[in-house]
């Protein structure tokens, strides 16, 4: 999140300031790619992210809103792109499966108490892989809350559900993640 400078950066980007636009891109794009990896299976997430920015740039001059509205708009565009591309492309499974397998290595040191699973070297890719095991709604809601940084209301509008349903889905998703981690600890 850019924070207090957002309005100024946005205004400059809307007037053709390339450096300002680069700031917007750097701030949002990593989250965009991660979000697409979670929710848009069967797609090339970098490609869809780039196509998302092409669409965003076309509408940039007309955009009006604060940083939360900006992120909601960008992620809504990405979601639409991801859905469109979802059935045509296969998801890239490069390091995700190997990361998950590495965590399940019996030779790996684990704490004796399965209730206190400490993921010493949990990296982003492994975390994304775990979230992707949730139900589609739970995975997307958690990705939008945590990765995109949207609030409950913005997530509700984006996924087309009530705020209450969004909260329930997010909480169930987190509890499910805790269970997965606990089981991983147990199996180790």
């Amino acid at each position: 999140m850019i924070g207090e400078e957002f309005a100024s950066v946005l205004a400059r980007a809307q007037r053709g300031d390339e450096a300002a636009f680069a700031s917007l891109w750097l701030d949002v794009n990593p989250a965009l790619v991660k979000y697409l990896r979670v929710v848009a299976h069967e797609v090339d997430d970098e490609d869809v992210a780039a196509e998302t920015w092409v669409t965003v740039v076309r509408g940039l001059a007309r955009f009006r809103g604060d940083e939360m509205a900006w992120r909601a708009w960008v992620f809504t565009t990405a979601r639409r792109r991801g859905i469109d591309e979802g059935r045509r492309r296969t998801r890239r499974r490069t390091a995700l499966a190997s990361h998950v397998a590495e965590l399940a290595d019996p030779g790996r040191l684990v704490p004796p108490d399965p209730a206190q699973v400490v993921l010493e070297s949990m990296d982003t890719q492994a975390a994304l892989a775990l979230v992707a095991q949730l139900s589609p709604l739970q995975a997307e809601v958690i990705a939008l809350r945590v990765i995109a940084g949207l609030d409950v209301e913005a997530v509700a509008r984006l996924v087309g559900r009530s705020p209450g349903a969004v909260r329930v889905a997010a909480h169930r998703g987190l509890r499910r993640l805790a269970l997965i981690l606990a089981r991983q600890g147990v199996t180790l």
Partner: protein
Amino acid sequence: MANFLRSLSGGRPYQGDDHLEAMLSGQPLPENADAELYGVNELLTALRAAPVDPVERPGQARALDAYRQTFATSDPAHQRRRRPAMISTLLGAKLGAALAAGAVGFGGVAVAAAAGVLPDAAQDFAHHAVGVVPAAHKDKSAKDVKDVKDVKDVDATETTKATPVGPDATGPAAFGLCTAWSHAKDSGNAAQKSIAFRNLATAAGAVTADTAGAKAEKIATYCTTFTKPDKVTKPDKVTKPDKVTKPDMTGKPSTAGKPTPLPGAATTGTSHRP
């Protein structure tokens, strides 16, 4: 742990929803949070971490290319200012304010009237008062309307170049000036002091008068020598008409820096070609 797993099996409601919300919002977990939540919290932290992924660089180039194509320039120093030009607005406002305040005085109105750019009613008044062309009323004959238009077009070109020195009080505008002065004097209008009336006073030799009354008397005497000129008739070309009443004049009006003599008023009997 047991409580947490029991809640997942569909039993009683989970007591730690506020802790879950805290994690989702990026806030630190309270100390009394369930132990199993710390692992989840670390997972969410890993989700938020910015990855060092070189694969994202090509995407940046594509985004910037799209931006450059959509926006004309990428250099803010070369962006044109889009604020509207203030100069014309300011000039317009100042001129309007000056005219409204009467700062230009009757002379300025005469200039505008001579150019035929006043509203019809005002143009007619000026026609009667100063001797300029009348407004192009639709109820007039087509001939007259055409005349007025032609005359207006021609005179507007020259008259608008005139400097604000007021009408020539010794020329054909004298009758109109006298009429206007008479009205202003009767109504006590301060417009008596405008440029036009000063010209009239000078022509009447009233400048050296001691009192205002003496000055007025001199102007009144001077004005009795003028009669109203005839209505404008159609010229063969854009020149003076044939039938005009030749007002008495004390001198040949010059053309430099003053409104040109108008058709309908003879000068020295030669054709007037503006």
